[in-house]
C-alpha cells in the first residue's frame, strides 16, 4: 500500500462524490442515491484495506502523510492513523452507508441530501485523521454546515430551531477551542498534535503558557475543554442534543449519534488528555461528577420521555457519559501510589469499545424508531403502539437485539465495553463506579419499558391496523448491525486486537501530573 495516500483518499473520496453530485444536477433520483451510496461505501472499503495492512504492534501513527502547507503559520498537511482513529474510520464506514440506506425511501431531493451527507462524512473522517490543528479544525467546523442543513431541511416540524440551536452551541464551544489554540500557538509556535503531545507530556506546554501568567494554562485548558464538552456532549452542555437528534431525519440521527458525538470523545482522547494531563488530573474530580451526571441523569431523563426518539437521544447522553467517566477516572487516579495499570488499561479499552458499540446500537435504535415512525404515519410516542411483536416478529427481534445490546446484556457487544469500563473504574475510583450503576439500572428500566409498551400486549395504536414487517432495504441496514452486535459480543478481540498495543502504551506511559 506504500505510495498510495490512503488517508487522503479516505477523506476526499466522499467529497469527490459530493462534488460529482453538484456537477450533475440533472441526475435521476435513483442514480443520485446509487452514486451517493457508492462514494459513501468507499470509506468502508478503504478502511478495511487500511485495517488489513495496519501494523497492530505499532503504537505510533501509520500511513502518515506530511506536506508543508502554510510556511508562515508553520502549518503542515498532516494525516495519520492509529488504533483509535482506525476504529472510528471503520465505524464511519459502517454507519454512513447505513444512514444513507435508511434514507432511501420517502426523502425528497436525494441529490442535495446525498451531497450534504457526503460532505458530512468526509468532514468527520478528516477530524479523525488530521493531526495538525489548522488542518483538523477545517473539518471540525465544516462538519457543522452540512449537519445544519440536513437537520433543518429534512427534519421534523421543530427542525429549524433545533438545527440553529445545535450550530450555535457547537460554534460557541469551538470559539473557545480556537481561542485556546491561539494561545497554544502563541506560546509554542506549532499546531501539530504530535509535537504538542510531546510538549504536554513533559509539562513544557504548561510551563510556556504560564509564562504569561499563572492562570493561563488552566484558562486554555478550559477553552479547549469547552469545545469538546459541547460536542460530545458532556452534562450539562447536552441541552442541544435531544432536540437536534429527535428532529433530524432518521439517517442523519444515526450519523449524528454514531459519528458526530464521537468527534468530541475523540477530541478528549487525542487532544485534551495528551496536551493537558496535569490540568485534566487537577480537574478530574468535578469532571467525574459531570460524567456521572450524564450517566445517571441522562438515563433518568430518558425514562421520563414519551417520545421514543427523544428517549433514544437521552440514552446517548448516558452512553457517552461512560466513555468520559472512564477517561476522567484514569486521569484522576494517575500518579496515585500503586495505581494499578490493569485498571487503567481496562478502562481505556472499555472506552474505545464503547465508542464503537454505542455507535452501532444507538444507530440501530434510531433506525428502529424511524421504522415505527414510518409505519405509523409519523407517530413515535411510547403509547402509540402495542403488540408490534405479533405483526412484525422479525422487526421486533432485531429491535430487541439492539435494545439488549444498548443496555449491556452479556453476550452482546454493549456488555464488553461497559464491563471493561466498570472493571477499570472500580479499580481507580470505586465510588464513581458505584454511582454509575444507577445509570445502568435506569437504562434497563427505560429500555424494558420501551420493549414492553411497544412490542408486547394486545395490538393497539398504530399496530392495530395493517403493519408490515420489515424487508428488503431495511433488513440490509439492520442485519449487518445486528450481526456485529452478536459477533463483537462474543469475539471482542476482533476490535481490541486493533488497539490493544496502543492502550498498553497509553496505560504504561500515563503522563505524570
Amino acid at each position, binding site marked *: 500500500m506504500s505510495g498510495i495516500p490512503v488517508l487522503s483518499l479516505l477523506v476526499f473520496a466522499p467529497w469527490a462524490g459530493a462534488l460529482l453530485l453538484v456537477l450533475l444536477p440533472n441526475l435521476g433520483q435513483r442514480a443520485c442515491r446509487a452514486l451517493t451510496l457508492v462514494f459513501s461505501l468507499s470509506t468502508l472499503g478503504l478502511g478495511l484495506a487500511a485495517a488489513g495492512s495496519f501494523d497492530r504492534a505499532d503504537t505510533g501513527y501509520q500511513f502518515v502523510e506530511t506536506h508543508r502547507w*502554510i510556511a508562515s503559520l508553520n502549518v503542515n498537511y498532516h494525516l495519520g492513523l492509529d488504533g483509535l482513529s482506525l476504529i472510528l474510520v471503520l465505524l464511519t464506514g459502517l454507519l454512513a452507508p447505513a444512514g444513507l440506506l435508511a434514507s432511501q425511501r420517502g*426523502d425528497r431531493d436525494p441529490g442535495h441530501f446525498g451531497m450534504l451527507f457526503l460532505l458530512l462524512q468526509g468532514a468527520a473522517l478528516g477530524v479523525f485523521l488530521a493531526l495538525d490543528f*489548522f488542518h483538523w479544525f477545517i473539518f471540525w*467546523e*465544516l462538519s457543522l454546515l452540512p449537519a445544519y442543513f440536513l437537520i433543518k431541511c429534512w427534519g421534523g416540524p421543530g427542525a*429549524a430551531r433545533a438545527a440553529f440551536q445545535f450550530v450555535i452551541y457547537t460554534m460557541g464551544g469551538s470559539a473557545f477551542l*480556537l*481561542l485556546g489554540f*491561539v494561545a497554544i500557538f*502563541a506560546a509554542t509556535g506549532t499546531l501539530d498534535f504530535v509535537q504538542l503531545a510531546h510538549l504536554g507530556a513533559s509539562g513544557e506546554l504548561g510551563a510556556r503558557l504560564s509564562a504569561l501568567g499563572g492562570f493561563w494554562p488552566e484558562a486554555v485548558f478550559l477553552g479547549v475543554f469547552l469545545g469538546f464538552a459541547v460536542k460530545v456532549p458532556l452534562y450539562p452542555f447536552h441541552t442541544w442534543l435531544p432536540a437536534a437528534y429527535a428532529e433530524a431525519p432518521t439517517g442523519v440521527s444515526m450519523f449524528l449519534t454514531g459519528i458526530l458525538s464521537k468527534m468530541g470523545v475523540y477530541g478528549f482522547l487525542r487532544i485534551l488528555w495528551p496536551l493537558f494531563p496535569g490540568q485534566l488530573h487537577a480537574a478530574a474530580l468535578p469532571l467525574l461528577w459531570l460524567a456521572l451526571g450524564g450517566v445517571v441523569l441522562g438515563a433518568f431523563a430518558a425514562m421520563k420521555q414519551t417520545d421514543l426518539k427523544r428517549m433514544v437521544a437521552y440514552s446517548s447522553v448516558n452512553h457517552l457519559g461512560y466513555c468520559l467517566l472512564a477517561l476522567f477516572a484514569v486521569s484522576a487516579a494517575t500518579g496515585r501510589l500503586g495505581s494499578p495499570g490493569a485498571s487503567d488499561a481496562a478502562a481505556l479499552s472499555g472506552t474505545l469499545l464503547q465508542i464503537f458499540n454505542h455507535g452501532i446500537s444507538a444507530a440501530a435504535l434510531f433506525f428502529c424508531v424511524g421504522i415505527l415512525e414510518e409505519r405509523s404515519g409519523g407517530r413515535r410516542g411510547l403509547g402509540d403502539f402495542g403488540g408490534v411483536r405479533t405483526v412484525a416478529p422479525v422487526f421486533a427481534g432485531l429491535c430487541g437485539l439492539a435494545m439488549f445490546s444498548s443496555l449491556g446484556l452479556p453476550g452482546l457487544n454493549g456488555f464488553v465495553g461497559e464491563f471493561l469500563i466498570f472493571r477499570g473504574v472500580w479499580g481507580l475510583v470505586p465510588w464513581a463506579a458505584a454511582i454509575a450503576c444507577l445509570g445502568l439500572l435506569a437504562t434497563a428500566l427505560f429500555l424494558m419499558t420501551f420493549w414492553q409498551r411497544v412490542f408486547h400486549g394486545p395490538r393497539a395504536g398504530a399496530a392495530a391496523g395493517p403493519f408490515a414487517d420489515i424487508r428488503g432495504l431495511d433488513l440490509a441496514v439492520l442485519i449487518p448491525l445486528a450481526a456485529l452486535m452478536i459477533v463483537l459480543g462474543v469475539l471482542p478481540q476482533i476490535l481490541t486486537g486493533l488497539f490493544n498495543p496502543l492502550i498498553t502504551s497509553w496505560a504504561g506511559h500515563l503522563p505524570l501530573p
Partner: protein
Amino acid sequence: MSLLPWCIYLSLAGAILSLVSGRHSAAAARWIALATAAGAWGLTLAAATRFVPGPGMQTLVDLPWIPTMGVRYHLAADGISLTLLVLTGLVATSGVLFSWNIGERTGEFFALFLALVAGVYGVFLSDDALLLFVFYEVAIVPKYFLIAIWGSTRREYAAMKLALYSFAGSALVLAGLLWVYAAGGAHSFGFAEMARAAALLPRGDQIAVFALVFFGFATLAGIFPLHTWAPTGHVAAPTAASMLLAGVVMKLGAYGCLRVALPLSPVGFAFWQTPIAWLALVGIVYAGLVALTRQDLKFVVGYSSVSHMGFVLLGIAAANPRAVSGAVLQMFSHGVVAGLLFAVVGRMVYDRTHTRMLADLRTLPLNRLLPFAAAVFVIAGMASMGLPGFSGFPAELSILVGAWTVSPAWVAVAAVGVVVAAAFTLRAIRLGFFGTSEGQCPAVPPPHGGPTPHMDPITLPEKAGALLLVGATVVIGLNPDLLLDWINPALQSPLFQSVLKGGAP
C-alpha cells in the same frame, strides 16, 4: 512591475471612454468598463508573477512634481500594496459584472466607477505622503455621486454623510502631515523623510500628530465611534459601489493607518496603542451586536463590515509582524467577502425581490427561487464567520495569535466578536434565505396554493462575478502563503521595523 502605474492611467482612460461611448450605447460603455477593469486587474496579476518580495517599496516612477515643496510623483509597490492592488482589480472587475443591469445613465455610472478605482490604485501605489493624499481625495468625489445618483435608501443623506466624514478625516490627515512638514523641517513628503522630521518634534506634539493622522485615516476604516458613515453609505450605494466601498475603500483608511500613520511616529503610536486596540475591540463586538438586530439585510452586511474592519485595526494596533500580516490578509479577505455579500444582497436579491427586509424575505422561499444566490450567500457567510478553509480564518488566526503576545485580554474580547459574527451570519442566512424551508428541501416544487413569485434567473455576469470572488476566498483560505509570502518581507523594511516589535513571524 514597471507596468503597474498603468492600472491608474488605464482606469482613467476607461472612465473617459465609457463616459463618451455611454452617450450612444449603454452596451459599449459596459464592455469598455469590463475590459478596463479586467485589463487593470490583469496588469496587477502580471506584475505579481514577476514580483520579487523584499523589504521596502520598489520604485516604479519617480518624477519631481512640486519641486519647491519637495513633492514628487513617486509611485512604488511592495508586497502589501501588491496584495491590495490585486484585491482592487478583483473587486472592480466583479463589480462591473454585478452592474451589468444598470440602465440609467450607464456611461456616467461606469465613468465614475472607474475614476474611483483609479484613485484607489493611486493610493496603493503612492510612495509620497502628499501624493497619497491627493489620490485619496480623488477617490472621495466619485463615491458621492455614485451614491447620490444611483443609490437607494436615503441616498442624498447617506452620500452627504459619507462625503463629510471622508473630508473631515482627510482634513485631519492633512493637518497632521503639514504640521510635521512645517514644524519638523522636512524636505519632502517621502514616508522616511516625514518620519525623520516627526522624530524631531517634542513628545507631546508627536502624540498629537499621530492622533491626527491615524484617526483621520481610521475614520475611513470605520473605527468605532467614527464608523457610522459606513453602514448608511454601504446601504444606500448601488451594488457595485457598495462592493467597492466596503471591499476596497475602507481598506484605503486601514492602508493609510498602516503605511503613513504607523511609521510616522513610533512615540505617538506607543501612546495610542492601547486606546486604538480597545476602540477596535469595541467596534468588533458592538457592530456585531448591531448587525444581530438589523431588519434590513444590507444593514446586517454593512455592520458586519465594520466588525471585520475592527479585526484589521486590532492587528495594526498589536504592531507585531504576525498580527500586521494578518491584518493585511484580513483586508484582502474582507474585501472579497464583503464584495460577495453585497453582491448577493444588493444585486441578486434586491433587484429581483425589491425588498431587503428580513421580515419580507423570510416569507419568500428564496432558497428555491434563487438557489444560486442562496448557495453563494451560504458560502460567503461561512467565509465571513471566519470558518477554516476560507480566507478569513488564517487572517483572524494570525491577528489573534499576534495580539495574544501583546495582551491576552484583547483576544478574549475579540473571541466574543467571533461568536457574535457566527450568530448574525447564521441569522441572516436563516431568515433571509431559508425562512420558509422548515421541513422542505432545497429543490421541491413549491407547495400548492398561491402562485410562486416569479424571479428572473441569475444572469451569466452575476455568476461569473460570484465565482471569481468565491474562488479567491477559497484559494487564499487554503493557501494563504500566496499572499503572506508577499506581505511578510514587506514588513521587514526599516520603516516598519522602527515601530513593529518582535521578529519575523
